[in-house]
């Protein structure tokens, strides 16, 4: 009888302990990665390749996502604002909403889908085909050669991706505003610029850097800890994307509290 009552609790306890253990492992992995920043050698070529892969090649997907979202946001704010004769707030709300929230979060989620999955799959495959062991036997530390360049590239590339995504998102709102909502072009742009503050933009870029760090760290962590075979790599890839996405949303809330709570 007691067993029947306590076994669900025991299972829950095991789940919580397992989750805490993973959190601890990820924290140690992230710390270990950062310590390699100050311990040579640094593989510049790998870093450059990752900047292109993570930053440059993510531009189209981030650009398209923010373009359509900016347009949809303009339509929604116009429709909502019309209920209390506040249609004129469309440019400023689109701009503030884009740079503070939607730009960084959407860029983060899209990069998580594109990059965390690819990093986890690549490193996971390297692990199961003994390429990681081969690196070690060739006197090359996998954390320095694989993890640090990816984490650093993602952390530095994401703020730029966010800034470009912000600009494209605002442009999406602008196009919808002048073509569908009869806004005057000059007035729309003036409204956008007048209400936007530097901190709105920089806070979004700081969020971007944090999200980039999360995406690459999750990809590398789950890749390095991938199970054997196709199923192991598949599972590592899925978990990396899910974990990165959840952490991005949780971190976004914490940073928003930190930056903007009264």
């Amino acid at each position, binding site marked *: 009888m007691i067993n029947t009552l306590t076994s669900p609790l025991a299972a829950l306890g095991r789940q919580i302990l397992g989750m805490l253990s993973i959190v601890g492992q990820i924290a140690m992995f992230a710390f270990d990665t950062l310590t390699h920043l100050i311990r040579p050698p640094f*593989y510049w070529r790998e870093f450059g390749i990752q900047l292109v892969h993570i930053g440059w090649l993510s531009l189209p997907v981030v650009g398209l996502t923010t373009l359509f979202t900016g347009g949809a946001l303009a339509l929604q704010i116009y429709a909502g604002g019309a209920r209390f004769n506040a249609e004129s707030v469309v440019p400023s709300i689109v701009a503030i909403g884009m740079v503070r929230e939607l730009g960084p979060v959407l860029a983060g989620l899209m990069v998580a889908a594109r990059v965390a999955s690819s990093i986890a799959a690549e490193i996971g495959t*390297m692990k199961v085909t003994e*390429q990681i*062991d*081969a690196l*070690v*036997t060739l*006197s090359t530390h996998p954390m320095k050669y694989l993890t640090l360049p990816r984490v650093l590239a993602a952390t530095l590339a994401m703020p730029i991706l966010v800034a470009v995504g912000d600009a494209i998102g605002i442009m999406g709102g602008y196009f919808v505003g002048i073509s569908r909502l009869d806004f005057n072009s000059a007035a729309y742009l003036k409204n956008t610029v007048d209400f936007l503050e530097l901190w709105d933009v920089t806070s979004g870029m700081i969020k971007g850097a944090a999200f980039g760090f999360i995406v690459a760290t999750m990809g590398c962590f789950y890749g390095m800890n991938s199970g054997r075979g196709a199923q192991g790599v598949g599972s590592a890839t899925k978990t990396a994307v899910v974990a990165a996405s959840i952490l991005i949303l949780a971190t976004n809330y914490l940073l928003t509290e930190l930056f903007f709570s009264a």
Partner: protein
Amino acid sequence: MITLTDVHKAFGSNKVLQGVNLHIARGESMVIIGGSGTGKSVALKSVLGLIKPDSGKIEVDGQDIAHAERDAFLARFGMLFQGGALFDSLPVWQNVAFRLMRGSLKRPNSEARDIAIEKLRRVGLKPEVANLFPSELSGGMQKRVGLARAIAAEPEIIFFDEPTTGLDPIMAGVINELIREIVVEMGATAMTITHDMTSVRAIADKVAMLHDGVIKWTGPVADMDDSGDPYLDQFIHGRAEGPIEAVR
């Protein structure tokens, strides 16, 4: 040169190595044989430090590897992995010259490339292969590239992990001959793990039979057929009946 003393390693409740004792002299080619899952790869990876033994001692030239300076220690080794373990993102020549392009053995790219092409030639591959990517190579060619990478920095000790697995008998014979030639030519100490008896006879100076986590028999390859050891006899003759349990 390489000495394993009472080495134990378990993964959870699975005790893989249960007191391995083995000595490999300088310049000797030792082949470790044994069934699948008997811990051959674990023993080999333990020497390289890729797996940390639970207990026991592994020494190279009298120095405990647990206290060795990693880079200097690993610079003495070359390894051919079972599947080649070539880096997909790099062309063949950069795979071969990997160690020569970074770290303490770093040299100019042109020189590293020349050495890579020379090593590729040594394993029977044409210079045109240098610019291909591993995915463009056949299994046999990948093994050769892996072998070229293992010898690129002229190591003192070379490990071969199942060097002929997945190859047709002719290509397996070619790889066996290459390994033998290269080991003799370089005067290197070699440690090979395999269950391919043709490889054993082609490569080995000495043979060690690993079963149930311990070395059951060790001796010169010439004595292998008359060892009188029931485990070794059953293994080399591929018999289902004997002290080694064969699951049907």
